[in-house]
């Protein structure tokens, strides 16, 4: 019963969502004084959806899809990114980061897998922001709501962007949107992966599926079900607690750095203006 209820809360009208998100992209980019967007394309579902939305909103000539492979990046990543670029006709540039990543770690010593993954994510961010200046386009973010809540991303890395059209859509919802937008079949059916190391999959690393965690989070976060209610609905206590902890512990990633308050008016505390101030 609660499974069906959770599913119903995850339902989206993909056409309506597309209408809203395309206007969002168009409006937010223009009000900042730009007409173009830049995004990191991995060949996964998230960045593919953002590429499709940006191409619709701005025209493919105004979208730069940047592929940023490291030497361990998979062939599937390259192939699927190419399929998106071919289908949309967006502009593209390939910027490998193997040389600078390897040079850095040759200097400081070999890292753990996690440090390597974070370093690559932040390197990709600097590439995107540099391409943003070169292409005169804003960086469109590709972090979805599931990742943002779980903190499954690198702060100032893949979580960095100027605007994020998909940050309020769970992974499950993105699949529905992707199907509506015509994202190639092979992207819809492959296991989600950050391509962080060879053979890595999100669900293998997290230890649960997006389908399950999205059902839990839509009840816990969006509908504000209490722990006891979630347990009554059949969710395992360990699963509920683990996810609740991840959401809380990673909240810092979703916020700007905390500022020590000294004056009467401090940024984001009592100096309060919309980001779209004056536009």
């Amino acid at each position: 019963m609660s499974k069906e209820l959770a599913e119903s809360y995850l339902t989206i009208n993909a056409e309506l969502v597309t209408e809203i998100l395309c206007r969002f992209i168009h409006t937010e980019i223009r009000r900042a004084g730009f007409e173009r967007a830049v995004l990191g394309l991995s060949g996964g579902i998230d960045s593919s959806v953002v590429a499709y939305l940006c191409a619709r909103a701005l025209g493919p000539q105004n979208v730069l899809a940047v592929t940023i492979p490291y030497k361990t990046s998979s062939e599937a990543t390259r192939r699927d990114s190419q399929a998106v670029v071919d289908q949309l006709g967006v502009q593209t540039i390939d910027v490998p980061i193997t040389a600078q990543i390897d040079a850095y770690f040759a200097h400081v010593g070999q890292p753990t897998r996690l440090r390597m993954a974070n370093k690559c994510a932040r390197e990709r961010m600097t590439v995107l922001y540099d391409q943003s200046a070169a292409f005169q386009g804003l960086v469109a973010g590709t972090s979805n709501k599931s990742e943002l809540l779980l903190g499954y991303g690198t702060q100032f890395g893949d979580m960095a962007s100027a605007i994020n059209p998909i940050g309020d859509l769970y992974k499950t919802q993105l699949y529905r949107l992707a199907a509506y937008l015509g994202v190639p079949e092979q992207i819809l059916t492959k296991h989600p992966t950050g391509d962080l190391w060879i053979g890595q999959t999100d669900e293998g690393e997290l230890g649960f599926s997006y389908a399950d965690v999205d059902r839990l989070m839509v009840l816990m976060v969006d509908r504000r079900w209490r722990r006891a209610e979630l347990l009554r609905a059949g969710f395992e206590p360990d699963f509920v607690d683990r996810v609740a902890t991840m959401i809380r512990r990673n909240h810092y990633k979703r916020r700007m750095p905390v500022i020590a308050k000294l004056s009467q008016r401090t940024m984001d505390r009592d100096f309060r203006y919309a980001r779209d101030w004056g536009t």
Partner: protein
Amino acid sequence: MSPRIEDSAAEGMRPLRVAMAQIAPRLGDLQSNLALHLEQIECARQQRADLVIFPELSLTGYFLRDMVPDLAISPDGPEIRQLVQAAGPMSLLLGFVEESPRHRFHNAALYAEGGRVVHVHRKVYLPTYGLFDEQRYFASGERFLAFDTARFGRIGILICEDFWHLSAAAIMQAEEVDLLVCPSNSPARGVDGPKIRTAETYEQLSKTFAQLLGAVVIVVNRVGFEDGLCFWGGSMAVGPDGHTIAQAPMLDPSLTIAAFDPAELRRQRMISPLARDERLLVTIEELNRIRRRRYE
């Protein structure tokens, strides 16, 4: 134009034309929004509108926060005077930040006709939950007053959240309004169905209130984005029988004309005299009884 209106034209009664100015104001840019209003007033004039209605806070945009005091104006000030003059013989309803003589800031809407401001409504219900934080910045209004007009009979104004309070609509019914106007800045939430959920609720409220009050209900909602919030537009005019007279497009700016026959009020109030049959004194007595129980 519906056949109903053509009939009335044949009887020699002119339908009233209301222009719903569904705009996307620039956030915190009074000068540019003044220019936008002048532009829309001119378009409405060309469309032979008798009244042009702008959304809530149409002169400033919505998510003002600390900008509120910087954008506050007086209904007697030069900005409003300029717009009222530009409207000429056309009536005007717009949204602005009002600074009272005691330096309180209100989310307000004014109605002007014949070259002068006739009424100012200060939003009573300032939402401060979820994504809203109006109470932090605005002082709340304390009155739901209807007012008489030259061409539209009695008008009541409910700003956005006011419209979601049953009591406010009931007061407007007791005030015997002919036209209930709701300027709004409604952000889209809920994208699971055929329509945006908030839009659906507005439509239900409009149709329900129109029938219960036996009045024309006009909601003018803005479009555009502020900090990721999507204002959905979809401005609508509903006749006293609950049928939609005109509906503006969703999500995009437009100036949409709603033409209606004032004689329809008479017809509908004969068919369904709900407002006539209200027992106002019973209601007051019952509310007094509840007040004693809850507050004394």
